């Protein structure tokens, strides 16, 4: 992926970024913070920073990786400020509603159960493991890109990924079975 065509108007260009990468960036931020409001604000900051730096951007790897690297730095900054890696009240996930809106009691209960299990699974991962796996999922980044994004050697990233997957399997597959 490269920067969108400069021939497009600025607004269209920004919208194109959003269409292409908005879900990945927001998904990553939401999974890390578990706060939709915080994720929204951070996602907005990510795009604004990328927009401000668009003239300086030089194509190196994917543009999505670049955005997620910004997102990750903002998260780290926020976490340093707040002195915590993730916050949160598990109930916050409840605010993540599908676009379709209405949901009956049965679906709400199923969603609640999914949220509970997801929180449980995230608890099984260390903060770095979460970052690695979420960047892999939402950004579909290569491990070398993840290593660059979070400032770790590639071997360390692979190790975190391997252990994280093992922990998820133990929590979600073996325990469930």
């Amino acid at each position, binding site marked *: 992926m490269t920067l969108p065509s400069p021939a497009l108007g600025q607004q269209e260009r920004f919208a194109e970024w959003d269409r292409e990468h908005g879900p990945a*960036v927001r998904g990553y931020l939401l999974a890390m913070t578990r706060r939709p409001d915080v994720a929204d604000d951070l996602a907005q900051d990510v795009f604004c920073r990328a927009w401000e730096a668009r003239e300086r951007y030089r194509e190196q790897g994917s543009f999505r990786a670049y955005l997620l690297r910004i997102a990750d730095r903002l998260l780290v900054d926020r976490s340093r400020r707040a002195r915590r890696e993730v916050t949160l009240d598990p109930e916050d996930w409840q605010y993540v509603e599908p676009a379709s809106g209405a949901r009956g009691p049965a679906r709400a209960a199923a969603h609640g159960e999914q949220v509970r299990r997801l929180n449980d699974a995230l608890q099984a991962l260390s903060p770095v493991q979460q970052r690695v796996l979420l960047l892999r*999922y939402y950004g579909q980044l290569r491990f070398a890109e993840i290593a660059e994004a979070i400032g770790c050697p590639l071997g360390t990233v692979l190790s975190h990924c391997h252990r994280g997957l093992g922990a998820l399997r133990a929590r979600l597959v073996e325990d469930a079975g």
Partner: protein
Amino acid sequence: MNPDRKQLERRLERATAARLAPGETLDPETAALREGWLAWTRLLDGACPDLRASEKGTVPLARANGFSSRRFRGGWQTFVAAAAAASIAAVLGVTGLVTPNRQAGPVGPAAETFTGSPGATAATPAASDLAWDDGLDDAIASFGQALIEARRSPSRLDGSFDAIQRRLQQMEQDLSDQEL
């Protein structure tokens, strides 16, 4: 890169791939890792269905363009204040009521700003003799109170704005009736 690491990377890439080629088989260890991955990503998709990695377009453009509700709130208040100030300026400016002879008060600087030409004021003895008027003072105080209310409580903005409008209309009516 050492061969073990290369092998591990390849294994993890397969275990966490978005999709596998049809008919592709995995060795038992990779398959086990992939089980954990798939179980987890299903939960992620279920918890945030709008943010599936393969889907697009979740951040509304208005937000992406810098108009988050948080940021807009301040802008709205500023807009109300500016609109109200402009309305007052228009009302007072059109009627030519405010003069430099008004005593210092809550609208002292504004009186200077909204006055017409000094010559025109001087040519109107009645205006230059205008005494401080408690009615106008009260109206301005009420208007100020409504404006403060709007700033303090954005959620009650509509009500505050109505109050501001009512005050402005009242002031305009009083001015045209020459009650002030």
